[in-house]
Structure formats: structure tokens, C-alpha cells
């Protein structure tokens, strides 16, 4: 079963095209990252799925059906910013959410405990710090233990401890078989927790699918010798080489993931009469990959 099927979805704000014919599918049980820089249309897309924004074209399905209100009751969603009644406490706000979702109030204490707000659960929302507001929003999404979670920038405003807590929370929810759709501009966040990814840029979908297919990692080896040009020329004959370039006084050689063997590279150079002054294996960072994809 697919949790979310997006089909040619578009959205215009006047002349600005916030989303341009985006299509992709979120299968059940995946942790689906929606990656994109600020203003790429992530929140707009989720806003349409949650019926707070109206699309200008295309459509979407939830649970393989035409979307309706009961679908949203089965999903726990944090969209953009925590939105709560400022004069009500955490408990009072969650009572409203529970009632809308047609669930009992018995789960409120549990989610408050999970997001670490038990000490302040009766203070008014207006007295919360940004991080606490974010925690309450995550707690609200967890209310009633929904099968699908939609989290838009879930670690926004959290301190490093909070970020780590939320990450492990997401991973434990994923291991329980829940489907998680997570929008983020934080690459390492997506890399660490997601199984699938869709990359958006200026409202266009530029890639989507299995995270290991989209964000293919390569081994990057940095080498240096007294004569860089000679080193580069010699390395063109290295087996299985993917690419080669001189960058910042080192030669960068890309090899398929897991194939770089420092010993054999060193021997190869020495056999070809070049003595290396520098040899280092570098994992290609996701950030580089992301910049490559979006530029």
C-alpha cells in the first residue's frame, strides 16, 4: 500500500510557481525524506496534502484513496511551526487535538512524557521557549500513536540534545513499522534516518527514490605529489576510476563505494615512479552530493 501518492501537483502564488508538477509515491513503512533548500516548496507541498493550502493543479491520494478528513485523523502532523492556543497549557492544547482526532485523552500524559515536557505540562503555551513549543508540536503529532507521521523540520529550534532525542525517537518509530514523511533542509538528518528521499528545488522534483540510489556514495581519495600534473596523468590508467580532478593542491580520485584500497593505490603510484606526499581516503559528503544535484 502507498501512504501518499502525489500526482503532478502544482501551486502558484501569483506569478511565482511554488510547486511545478511534482509527482512521487511514499510506500507504507518507509522513512521518506523530502529534501530541499529553503523555499523549495517542501512546506507548500505538505500544506496541500493537509488541506490548509489549495493546489493550482494536479492531485494526491492518501492511503490509496481520495483524501478526506478521516485520513488526516489517522496521521500525526507537525507543519512548519507549532500552532497552539497561547493561553492554554500543554495538556489543555492536547485535549483539543485529541478531541478533533476523535481519540481519548488517555494518551496525553504518555506523549508529554516522551517529548520531555512533564515538568511544565500545566504552564501556558505562551510561556514556553521555542524548543519547548517544538517539543509540544512533536508530542501532538505522536498523540494516539498514529500509523503515519508527517514532520516538517522536526528538529527546528531544538538544542543538540533535543535533536539527538528526536532522531532516536524517529528511528524507534520507524523500527515499529510506522511510515514517516519528513521534510528537512538538514542533509545529515535525512541521511541518518531516511530510507527514501525526494529532492525539491525551486518547486521542481529533481530526484526521488531509495536513498541509496539517489544519494549514491563514492569513495574519494585525495593524493598529492611534487608534480600534480604528472600524478593526474598517471592515475588516468587506474582501474575502475570514476573521475579525476585537481583541487586545492591535491588530486581527487573518485572510485566506486568501498573499492578504494590505500595500499594498492600507494603501490600503483610507486610502481609508476611517483612518490606520494599525501594519501587520504575521504567519504564523499552528502552535502557535496546535494550541491551537485541542486546546482
Amino acid at each position, binding site marked *: 500500500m502507498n501512504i501518499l501518492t502525489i500526482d503532478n501537483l502544482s501551486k502558484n502564488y501569483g506569478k511565482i510557481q511554488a510547486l511545478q508538477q511534482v509527482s512521487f509515491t511514499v510506500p507504507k513503512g518507509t522513512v521518506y525524506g523530502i529534501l530541499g533548500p529553503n523555499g523549495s516548496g517542501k512546506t507548500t507541498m505538505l*500544506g496541500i496534502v*493537509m*488541506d*490548509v*493550502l*489549495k493546489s493550482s493543479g494536479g492531485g494526491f491520494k492518501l492511503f490509496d484513496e481520495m483524501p478526506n*478528513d*478521516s485520513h*488526516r*485523523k489517522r496521521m500525526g*502532523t507537525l*507543519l512548519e*511551526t507549532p*500552532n*497552539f*492556543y*497561547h*493561553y*492554554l497549557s500543554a495538556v*489543555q492544547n492536547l*485535549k*483539543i*487535538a485529541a*478531541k*478533533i*482526532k*476523535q481519540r481519548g485523552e488517555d494518551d496525553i500524559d504518555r506523549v508529554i512524557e516522551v517529548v520531555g515536557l512533564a515538568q511544565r505540562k500545566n504552564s501556558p503555551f505562551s510561556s514556553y521557549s521555542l524548543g519547548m513549543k517544538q517539543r509540544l508540536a512533536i508530542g*501532538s503529532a505522536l498523540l494516539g500513536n498514529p500509523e503515519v507521521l508527517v514532520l516538517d523540520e522536526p528538529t527546528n529550534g531544538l538544542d543538540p540534545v533535543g535533536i539527538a532525542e528526536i532522531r532516536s525517537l524517529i528511528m524507534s518509530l520507524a523500527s515499529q513499522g510506522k511510515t514517516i514523511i519528513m521534510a528537512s533542509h538538514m542533509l545529515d538528518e535525512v541521511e541518518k534516518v531516511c530510507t527514501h528521499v525526494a529532492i525539491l528545488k525551486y518547486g521542481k522534483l529533481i530526484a526521488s527514490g531509495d536513498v541509496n540510489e539517489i544519494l549514491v556514495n563514492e569513495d574519494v581519495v585525495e593524493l598529492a605529489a611534487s608534480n600534480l600534473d604528472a600524478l593526474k596523468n598517471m592515475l588516468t590508467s587506474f582501474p575502475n576510476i570514476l573521475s579525476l580532478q585537481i583541487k586545492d593542491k591535491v588530486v581527487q580520485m573518485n572510485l566506486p563505494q568501498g573499492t578504494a584500497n590505500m595500499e594498492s593505490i600507494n603501490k600503483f603510484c610507486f610502481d609508476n615512479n611517483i612518490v606520494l606526499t599525501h594519501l587520504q581516503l575521504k567519504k564523499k559528503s552528502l552535502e557535496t552530493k546535494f550541491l551537485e544535484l541542486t546546482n
Partner: protein
Amino acid sequence: MLELLKIEWLKLKNYKAFLIIGIFFIIGIFVTNYMVLTVFNKMVDKTEAGMLLGKFMPYDFKHVWQTTSYTSGYILILPVMLLIMLVTNEFTYKTNRQNIIDGLSRLDFINVKIVLATLFAVISTIFVVITGFALASTTGTEFSLHGFSQVGYFFLKAISYNFFAVFLSVLIKRTGFAIGVYFIYMSAENIIAQLLDVWSMKIKADSKLDLGSLGSYLPMNASDSLLSFPENPFKSMAKSAFPTDYHYLTISIAVFFVVLFYWLSRRIILTKDL
């Protein structure tokens, strides 16, 4: 709908403005009417004008429903303020979005606000009836429902005001701005209504065309014009100059605008980005 109202109650019961405005409103209805009663009692007893008034008592059971309905109309601004605050707050704090995200439908969102506006009108009307009964009981006159239809007009006026408040709130979305526009609109409509009324008299005098008072066909003035202070010796004006009071036409127009405000509010919520 009951479940939806319970959700609204969770939002309302800890909202300080609700408590404060609610208390002011209840006290307001009573105090305003009590003041009018006291003024009349003093006049009848002691002044020369009292002689002219003779036996006219606005709060005896014969007149009380009309007097209380008319007088209490001025306090309706309080529930209007409260409604504007409640609805615009949802937009300011984006809780309207959160409600929808959590699974409320857009239609339920606007319908429950309209039901709330109706409920406020019902409660206001109940307090008018209680106040009227209490004050009339002090006059020692015999119980009567004479002129009780005026209470119905009060209800219509409260509905008109409240629906207009909901419409302005979903249209403007900002608390201060919506309240400001409300006051400016009310003043503007009253001025235009007066000009139209004068014009209606002129039309009647010039061409014998009796269209009624055109001013009372405006959205808020329609229900306003249904209510007036009881007839009394002070109000003995030359009636013949006035156009005919087309009562049922005015009621129909007031109802038409109530429906229009609901339809417009609903349309905004159902079709726009939230």
C-alpha cells in the same frame, strides 16, 4: 455538531476575555435597562415632563418586551467583539491550520463558528427575556406577552450582528483591524441610512412613490430598524411624512443578509489558502 461545540468549549472556558466580556454583557443588559427604568420613574414622579407622560411606563408588562429589546440592542457590541477575537485569534495563532491538520474539515471549522454565533444570540435573547421579566415584575403590572415579537426582532438583530462579525473576521483575519473595520462600517452605514431615509421621504413627497425607508434595507440597519422605543407622548411626530414601514420586507432583507454573510464566510474558508 455537539462534539464540535465541545471542542469550542475547551477553547473558550479558559479564555479570560470570554469570562470578562460575558460578565460585562450580562451586567450591561441589566444595568442599562435598570437605568432607563430609574430615569423614567424619576421623571414620572417629580418633573413637569412627567405630567406630559401621564401613565406611560416603559417597563410595565405592556411595553417591557419592546423597551428591553430596544435598549439591550446597544450592548450587542460586546458579543460581537468577543466573536471577532475568537475567530481572528485562530488565524493569528494559526490554530485554524492546526485544527484542519488534526482532521477537522474546513466546513466544520466555519460551521461551528456560525453555530457559536447563533448560540451567543440565543443566550443574549434569554438574558433580555430574564431582565425584562425581572424589571417588569417590579412595576406591579399584570403579566403579559404583549409585544413579545420584539424579542424575536432582538434575536434577529443579534444574529445579524454576530454573523457579520464572523464574516469580517474570516475576511480580514487580524483582530484589531477587524474590530476597526466593524466600527467604521457601522458608522458609515448609519450615516448612509439616514441620508437614504431623508431621500425616501423626498421621493414620497415628490412622486407619491412609497418605497418605505430605504435606509432600513441596508445590512445592519434592517434588523436595527425593526426595534424602537415604545410609542409615548414624547414621540408624537407627524407620522404622515414618513414612508410606510414595510415590516415583512425589512425582516426578509435582514434574513437575506444573515444568509449572505454565512454563505460568504463559508466560501472564504472553503476555497482560500488558510
